[in-house]
């Protein structure tokens, strides 16, 4: 019910931009585009969010890229960092063990 799908606006079908055609999973469907005003003004070729036959808003390519950038920084970058920390710990343990070995085994 509250599900809405991003779809590419192919063209407007009237001069007032009340209706447009979107491409949704290979099919073209006519939708109501009268809510696409102000910040949501959309050019053909851009994406809109479609809900029950109405375009609710424009999907901002720029904002999507920004969110993905943040996610990518939080994701694999974070994993890499964790891996590096673990590797450095492992290296430290090896160094400690090696130096302990050279002391002829201090602990019991």
């Amino acid at each position, binding site marked *: *019910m*509250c*599900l*809405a*799908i*991003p779809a*590419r606006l192919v063209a407007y079908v009237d001069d007032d931009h009340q209706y447009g055609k979107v491409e949704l*999973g290979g099919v073209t469907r006519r939708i*109501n585009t*009268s*809510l696409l*005003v*102000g*910040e*949501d003004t959309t050019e053909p070729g851009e*994406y809109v*969010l479609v*809900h*029950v*036959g*109405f375009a*609710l*808003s*424009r*999907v*901002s*390519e720029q*904002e*999507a890229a*920004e*969110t*993905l950038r*943040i*996610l*990518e920084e*939080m*994701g*694999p970058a*974070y*994993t890499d960092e*964790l891996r590096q920390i673990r590797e450095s710990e492992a290296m430290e343990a090896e160094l400690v063990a090696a130096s302990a070995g050279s002391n002829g085994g201090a602990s019991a």
Partner: protein
Amino acid sequence: MKFADEFRDADIARALGKRIADEAGGKHWKVMEVCGGHTHTIFKYGIEDLLPSNVELVHGPGCPVCVIPMGRLDDGIALAKQPDIIFTCFGDLMRVPGSDGSLLDAKAAGADVRMVYSPLDSLKIARDNPDKKVIFYAIGFETTAPSTALTLMRAKAENLRNLFVFCNHVTIIPPMKAILDSPDLQLDGFLGPGHVSTVVGIRPYEFVTNTYKKPVVVVGFEPLDILQGVHMVIQQVLQGRCEVENQYTRVVHDDGNPKALEVLGRVFQLRTQFEWRGLGFISQSALELRDEFAEWDAEKVFTVPGLRVADPKACQCGEVLKGVLKPWECKVFGTACTPETPIGTCMVSSEGACAAYYNFGRYSRARERERVMGAGSAGNGSGNGNGAAPEKELKPIEVRAG
């Protein structure tokens, strides 16, 4: 699909889950996703299996079909059975049990009940059938109400006199308030409804941060959106902040969609009160047609029984909708109540917590058992929990058969 697949990257999802696990520490976190669309994504992609077991997602009341009380459904069925009526509704509503069968049963018994994708389809059916009266059962939150409003404005402009709306549109803020006022739930924060917010913006949630001191993060509907939202809620709490934040900036503007709000104001006004399944009567929580649209208002034109009907005794949808009960804790879950033979609304709608749990939730149930049995945490980046080689993209869990 563009703007969807990118937000399903499995590596990032696992890393985010790990990061949340590290930052969540030993505290038990409860974050409510308000919207049923989020509940659907959470189960479909096994999001709970990516989270540590001390981060609990509590499923909220934002499923439009689920919150409709049985009396309003009976009203719809009574309208559908009147002579010369074509009754239209969204597919989700067809199988919801009323006190004497569903709309699907009414259709089988001879009523002309038709499933539509859009309110505009009802408009077309009315144009094509001038000798019939077409009644559209309108449901949905602020996401869907502008579509009904624009359809009615069109009907009025065309002077189309055989289309009527049985209005059951509800608003999101009053049930959130009801849940916050309830002593049953101690929540740490909210994932705000992304698509409602495309219409209303993010400012209406400020009462949650100002009065109730709980963070709200408006989030999108892909797996990474939800994980990032959970992370943002936890970050706010850890940093001592309490704000309304917007994770879903690619479609939600802070002020919403002014045109959609304008058409809502032109066509609808707030009802004095409306009954919600599980939450009871909540004042000013639903919409009705303004007097200018009285000729299109099914409640004014036709006789509607308007009886209040109690839920079946065995049904605990109310507790599930409030987030007090997990779907699997309901006495009839998966036994007497299944998607094929539902007793309550939460088992019918694809956004209902019970249907989502039943269809996709087998891993979650296993995980929940582990939690209850104290066998340590599941999750922490275990992906969909199926033990297979890691996928590059999170795949939906297959709906279980039968």
